[in-house]
């Protein structure tokens, strides 16, 4: 199936280039009689197209069909999760980005409120796209705990 899709893409790419080739041919063979040039144009156009198609079929068949191209996000790792969490926290205006570390406590080190912590957890929900229930959200007090929780929920091992 991927091969068929690729063939169609190659065909759509080949078509404008074919149009360019035929335009050049018409300019060059304008002096020659119409019927002869027309027939030769058609013949050359067809042969070119068939040659393109054969090449594309061959090249498409060479592509590895076993790699399925589903639409999905890249896999999560601890480092990517940590980077994204710290990036979102740096964007939050009540946090000083210089003082932020992976182990800084929201209430004790950064001086945030419980409602601020709720806002942070909501930002994490928006970032990673899954709901965090409040019973577990009230315990997440450092960025490292958030990373561990997301890794638990998303089955990220190392």
């Amino acid at each position, binding site marked *: 199936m991927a091969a068929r899709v690729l063939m169609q893409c190659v065909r759509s790419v080949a078509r404008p280039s074919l149009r360019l080739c035929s335009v050049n041919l018409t300019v060059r063979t304008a002096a020659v009689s119409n019927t002869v040039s027309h027939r030769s144009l058609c013949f050359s156009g067809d042969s070119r197209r068939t040659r393109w198609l054969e090449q594309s079929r061959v090249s498409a068949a060479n592509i590895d069909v076993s790699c399925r191209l589903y639409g999905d996000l890249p896999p999560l790792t601890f480092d990517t999760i940590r980077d994204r969490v710290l990036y979102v926290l740096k964007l939050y205006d009540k946090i000083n980005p210089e003082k932020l570390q992976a182990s800084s406590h929201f209430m004790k080190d950064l001086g945030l409120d419980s409602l601020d912590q709720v806002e942070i957890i*909501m930002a994490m929900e928006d970032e990673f796209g899954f709901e965090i229930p*409040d019973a577990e959200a*009230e315990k997440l007090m450092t960025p490292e705990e958030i990373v561990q929780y997301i890794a638990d929920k998303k089955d990220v091992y190392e």
Partner: protein
Amino acid sequence: MASTAATRAAAGAAKVVKPIFSRDLDEAKRRVRELYRAWYREVPNTVAMYQLDITTRQGRDKVRELFTKNKHVTDPRVIDMLVIKGKMELQETIHVWKQKTHIMRFFAESEEPRPTDFLSKFYKGHDP
């Protein structure tokens, strides 16, 4: 009169009262957080639906202000009552049973700074 005095004495002596929703302070705080989350997510929809002249950030600051106004409360039943009232407001806001004026009542009227130079005072008129 006598019955209310008796119930008050009984309540004072026992210190166990019938809860409204939550049995202890933690559960009440959890309800408060859930309500805050709902309001936080609702503010941009409100600003769009009612075509308010405030920014989303101003709306969220106002929500934060109203929540911190009742921050000192410790009785779980009082907290539950406030949460119930907040939920009623939220329902009315979501379903557009309110109008723009009802929502803007939360915001104090913005004062214009008094004019200082002669021409501004002249335009404003004589208002001693």
